[in-house]
């Protein structure tokens, strides 16, 4: 077993990037992502990490540098938040279209206006369809672990996709948690150096980034879509290999006390741990409540979600972002996933914790109370922004 030590989650993320032996790091400062790059720059300055590290003049360039370096055969890393992600969004689509593996950690923060540095998922939801493999994590250990999982997975010759790890800004990024570090020899075995299928080099010239006319564009896009969908077995396989190494097994959709539960809370990200405390409390009171957590956001785990919610009567989906004019983006996806089932639960959707608004275990209990009552009264399509004045 590796050492278990207390460290800030952003530092743990940076340590993982170091242990993954990345070749190039390019980033631009934005709160709450800064601690990751600050620590990485220290590691490079002290000679603890042999990588090209540079702070560029914008997030757009940060990701563009990674795209150029990944195409040349380097293992690259960047991280951002909020407005920074919005600025680089153009290049997120291009990176996946070019099938270039790389890792980006998003320290999730709300999108302006009004300007706010605090956490929610509106930044990452704005690039939901960018074609990257997208994870949500619950705690610092999961951030650390998924750095290795992401590189091994994205660089697999049968995958070749960039990967995003979403971690809640401040709520995770700035807290100190116990992290079990993995020995370097184990990581080197789990994650050998990147071997690109194609790379920019004069010895074997290739053209990358050609434009496509309608006659070929749709086929190219279909190939990309099918490749992302069919990366699912590789994702499972990579998590299995990681679990065999560390004893920590991960799944696309995870469940907590869902056995025979009539009502299921459904969360994504750091909400999961808080909600599990609420579930414990409700179970103690004899209530039939469980928790479903979505870890894999893209490719979306339709089958796993159906399986996890098969016997529930009510689903209380807690979104941490608003799709203005519609409902929570997770709720939309969940409803779409369950529509084909003959027997499906009522879905009640709350948007909660916008811009870092604190959501406590008792809030989750209140949301379950409200949803159960509303559904009882026949409101099967409930949607509300929880705990807001006015």
């Amino acid at each position, binding site marked *: 077993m590796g050492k278990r030590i207390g460290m800030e989650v952003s530092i743990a993320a940076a340590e993982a990037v170091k242990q993954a032996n990345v070749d190039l790091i390019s980033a631009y400062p934005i709160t709450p992502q800064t601690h990751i790059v600050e620590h990485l720059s220290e590691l490079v300055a002290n000679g603890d990490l042999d990588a090209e590290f540079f702070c560029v*003049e914008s997030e757009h360039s940060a990701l563009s540098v990674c795209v150029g*370096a990944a195409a040349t055969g*380097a293992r690259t890393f960047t991280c951002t938040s909020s407005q920074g992600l919005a600025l680089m969004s153009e290049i997120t689509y291009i990176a996946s279209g070019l099938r270039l593996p790389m890792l980006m950690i998003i320290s999730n923060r709300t999108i302006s206006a009004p300007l706010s540095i605090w956490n929610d998922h509106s930044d990452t939801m704005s690039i939901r369809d960018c074609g990257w493999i997208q994870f949500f994590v619950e705690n610092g250990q999961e951030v650390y672990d998924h750095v290795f999982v992401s590189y091994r997975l994205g660089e697999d010759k049968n995958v070749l996709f960039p990967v995003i790890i979403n971690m809640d800004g401040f709520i995770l990024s700035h807290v100190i948690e116990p992290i079990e570090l993995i020995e370097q020899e184990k990581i080197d075995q789990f994650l050998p150096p990147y071997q690109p299928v194609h790379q920019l080099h*004069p010895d074997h010239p290739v053209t990358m980034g*050609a*434009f496509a006319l309608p006659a070929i564009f749709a086929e190219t896009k279909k190939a990309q879509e099918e490749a992302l969908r069919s990366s699912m077995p590789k994702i499972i396989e990579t998590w299995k290999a990681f679990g065999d190494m560390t004893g920590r097994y991960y799944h696309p959709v995870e469940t907590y006390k869902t056995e025979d539960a009539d009502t299921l809370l459904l969360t994504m990200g750091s909400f999961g741990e808080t909600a599990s405390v609420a579930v414990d409390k409700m179970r103690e009171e004899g209530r039939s409540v469980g928790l479903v957590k979505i870890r894999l956001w893209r490719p979306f785990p339709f089958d796993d979600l159906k399986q996890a919610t098969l016997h529930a009567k009510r689903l209380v989906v807690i979104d941490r972002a608003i799709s203005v004019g519609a409902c929570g983006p997770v709720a939309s996806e969940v409803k779409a996933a369950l529509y084909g089932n003959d027997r499906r639960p009522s879905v009640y959707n709350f948007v909660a914790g916008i811009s870092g608004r604190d959501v406590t275990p008792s809030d989750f209990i209140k949301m379950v109370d409200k949803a159960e009552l509303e559904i009882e009264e026949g409101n099967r399509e409930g949607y509300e922004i929880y705990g807001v004045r006015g």
Partner: protein
Amino acid sequence: MTENLNVFAVRTLTQKEYFTPGHRSCQGCAEALAVRLVAKALGGNVIIANATGCMEIVSSPLPYTAWRVPWFHVAFENTAAVASGIESALKVLMRKGRIPRKKIVTLAMGGDGGTADIGLQALSGALERGHNFLYVCTDNEAYMNTGIQRSSSTPFGASTTTSPVGRVQMGQITWKKNMPAIAAAHNIPYVATACPSYPIDLVQKVKKAADIEGPAYVHILSVCPTGWRSAPELSIRLGRLAVETGIFPLYEVEKGQYRLSIDFPKLKSIKDYTKLQGRFRHLTDEMIEEIETRVHKEYEQLRAKAGKGS
């Protein structure tokens, strides 16, 4: 004078084509000629990052390519950043022994829009960071790829589809952005202007720029018959006239030292240049005089910087 070196230089220029025939540029496209010469000057050991624009579109319709060297297109405004990534990746991969050590030139290429407008921030960042790369701007003085819209590099008075000649406004009302001066203001080791109408000069400058350690910037005036409303067979002559009138002087800035590549004691009349182009057909004598006054003043300022003050 570069003319004296023609015989020598022509024979040293490779017959190999790296930007191959069969690409889809317009008749008389001097930008394609400029790119062909740049590619010949650099040879096979190069990786090219190309901005969105004419040269990207004419050379890479999937599944075809006109490139015999590694070539990469990502987006419009980020070419210098992409080149930064390529250059740094080569450096670290060679250092870690993952690819063999050898000299590979990183070339970033963009048009005037991709350089002076939307790509200026990424370019400034890459120049400031000091990457060992060469940036070539092929300047045809408007967004030709999207249908001749004005850029900050469009000259005063020129008619484009977004600086049209109307009842109250006569074409472009602003003066051409001085992109080489902006590049030189970054204190990079090498900045030059060139034009494919002076092929030997162009090739020599590109070779020099590639050999210099650190960032280098070469700004190439590229006559566009489609956008300039000029006859395709006049492209070479128009490039020469741009230089001979003082509108586009050929010079180098090496470690801060200005040097005129060709100096003209007497500049040709601006009218010799404008009368061959439809984009200037509406110019009044007063406007031409205004242009001439400004061109002459700027030419003298340049001569003074090059130690040739009158």
